[in-house]
């Protein structure tokens, strides 16, 4: 076993690679792990599980782990995607078991398979957002008003231009909006992919600006990652 986890000393040697796609959860306290820290977290997880990971070849070999879609800090999800390459073929359920045995609280691998689609097929994410307000405004009614505007203008931070106003009306596809106890529950589909991404926080911050309300509690969960034709990304 030990020999397998060595990266190749001889750089001329081409090591065969076996690609896997893992679908994982990031919930509870683990939702505060930043995207930047996730890479380091997983590289330690694989080391603990003694998984024979494949290293990029070259001057500065690095573990090959790839997250095609970033998840906003604080958002929960059971459908996150990670691609990884190994130097040997491992049984998928064994791989999953070994990794899950050494995962920190709130993180879990739900599925492992050979990648089918390519990252550029990702086009949409669906979110479920539950919130309640500090004030006793009728949150459902007020949020409906926000969504039914002719234009939904929100402030977006752009690297080049700083803060700019954008209209996201055509991007926001509301799947359902109702009450769940004291919470308002919103199900929404938003573009997320190479061409265009609208973060759920854009929609939710837009509401704050629109209404002047503050959230008392807000929980956001990504529920699906979809292709252009609304198939689940696999």
């Amino acid at each position, binding site marked *: 076993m*030990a*020999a397998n*986890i*060595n*990266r190749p000393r001889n750089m001329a040697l081409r090591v065969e690679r076996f690609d896997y796609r893992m679908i994982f959860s990031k919930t*509870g*306290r*683990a939702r*505060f*792990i*930043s995207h930047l*820290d996730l890479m*380091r*977290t997983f*590289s*330690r*997880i*694989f*080391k*603990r599980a003694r998984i024979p990971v494949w290293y990029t070849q070259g001057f500065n070999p690095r573990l090959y782990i790839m997250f095609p879609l970033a998840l906003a*800090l*604080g958002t929960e999800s059971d459908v996150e995607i990670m691609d990884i390459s190994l130097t040997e073929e491992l049984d998928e359920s064994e791989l999953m078991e070994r990794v899950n045995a*050494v*995962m*920190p*609280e*709130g993180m879990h691998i739900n599925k492992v398979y050979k990648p089918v689609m390519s990252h550029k097929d990702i086009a949409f994410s669906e979110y479920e957002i539950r919130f309640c307000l500090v004030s006793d405004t009728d949150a459902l009614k007020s949020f409906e008003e926000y969504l039914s505007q002719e234009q939904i203008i929100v402030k977006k931070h752009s690297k080049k231009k700083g803060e700019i106003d954008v209209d996201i009306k055509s991007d926001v596809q509301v799947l359902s909006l109702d009450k769940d106890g004291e919470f308002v529950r919103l199900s929404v589909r938003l573009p997320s992919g190479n061409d265009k991404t609208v973060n759920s926080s854009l929609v939710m911050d837009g509401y704050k600006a629109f209404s002047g309300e503050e*959230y*008392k*509690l*807000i929980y956001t969960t990504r529920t699906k990652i979809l292709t252009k034709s609304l198939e689940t990304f696999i």
Partner: protein
Amino acid sequence: MNYKEKIEQLLLSVQKPARYIGGEHGSVIKDKSKIDVRFAFCFPDVYDIGMSHLGMKILYALKNKRENFWCERCFMVEKDYKQVLIDNDIPLYCLESLDPLYEFDMIGFTLQYELSYTNILSMLSLGRVPVLKKDRKDLAPIVVAGGPCVCNPEPLVDFIDIFIIGEGEEVNLELMDLYSEVKKRNGTRQEFLRLAAKIEGIYVPEFYDVTYNDDGTLHSFTPNIPEAPAKIKKRVIADFDNVYFPEYFVVPYTSIVHDRSVVEVLRGCIRGCRFCQAGFIYRPFREKSVDKIKSETKSLCEQTGYDEVSLSSLSTSDHTKIAELLRTLADYTDAENVSLSLPSLRIDNFSDELLERLKTIRKSGLTFACEAGTQRLRDVINKNITEEEILSTCRTAFEGGYTTVKLYFMLGLPTETDEDIEGIAQLAHKILDAYFETPRELRGGSIQISVSTATFVPKPFTPFEFEPQATAEEIDRKQKLLVRRLQSKKIKLSTHQDDTSILEACLAKGDRRMSKAVYNAWLKGCELDSWSEHFHFEKWQEAFDECGLDMAFYANRKRDYDELMPWDHLDYLVSKRFLISENKKAHEARTTRNCKEGCSGCGIDKCYGGVYCGGKH
């Protein structure tokens, strides 16, 4: 809405929230209904620094190994999150349960540096625990403190109930067992403290009375209850090879200062540099066997998943089997694709074969803790390093392509003259010359020498505890002299800010009366003093003035050999007689051999497990 829900909401809007929520791999969660004693291990600095500290990792795992104890972690918060906590009425909490500090049975601080003292007050206050011990009436919480700075705990006696003197692995559990027993029978705080005072290594300051002479020095220091011993002897783990060491670490998500596995290879130091507190308070020198170190390295690497392991000690090369140790570890780390880093390693007497291996292990820049610029002054401080060693190591390194050299010095050492300051500049220039003398085809592209100076701070339990600190004006003059003498763009000088050194000297050598000044300074807003952007020396000066205390009395006064020091009731095993004789030898620029060359009779009995101690037993 409960605290936990609130915390999670607020974390959505702070910097690096993973530091404030716990849940890391290795963190210990227990069912609190089944716990007898809940212990909050507090590091009085921010997460990134505290999580790097080995002592905390050891004691955390040690306590949690006991089923009926639950030890959690708590750190100082940064200013932004502190404001968030205050604005939202959330008490400071521990990272495992997210329960507020005031709910714990025992709250323990580790004192690693003097400038963290005000953070203790901030953490207690944010955690809604009365800051002053006289305001804590119930059994819980008991506030304890340990770590190197408790060798003079007097400036903190108003805030801390119990100080733990020496090594904590045994005494922490004894104290918690006692607490558990007293709690079960509904005993009082007083009862607990009295019983605790009987445990070896436990110092309960309220059981001692202090009187002063007219000149402000201490007159007497006497116990006021029969249970309290006149001298409190530090605890030492004599069987160091079998001391508890954690088989797991808490592995953080965010990057921290030392983000790697760490294995302790030895404790204590054989060298006896006269300025170095660690070199005296951690005596005697004890080490772990190669097998033990290897198995600890292996289990930690496996549990953490770190790809780097480092050896911790005051001077790793003093391990009696250093070559065998490094070879064994390198075999393991090579096979597991883990890198081995070796701080505090002197490479004087290694074989070429081993040096070659180490090169592949880690190639970092060259670092020399020269401490003083001339051989005379290095003899005064008993720093055993010669100019020729430094230069020859540099020459070899330059031929191997190294291009950065870091040199560390102290300014204001006892007996220091301008010649010694000029010696610093000369040494740096000689190293520069050595680089230019290296054949062009061997040496690296461009050289960078950095010279760092810090102000000497005399510390208790060292032969220099009697010495005055140089005044700010003297240090300033010395720094300017050094700047004038360093005349190359290739040599970079960085100097340590001195006001913090003055405060450090006061806190290190202070007496009980200083506790009030610490309190006043904190009331004025002093906290995170070790961060230059938060350090306000004028507030500290005001606080000292308000208490009628003179900083110069503590920092800049030469003390007689027979003066009663504020820490003389503590016994760190090294005898006063030895410290005095070392001080005298320093003034004659005479060195003392290290323990390996022969025992110098510093007063430590061989029953404490020291490898070289020859004393009676």
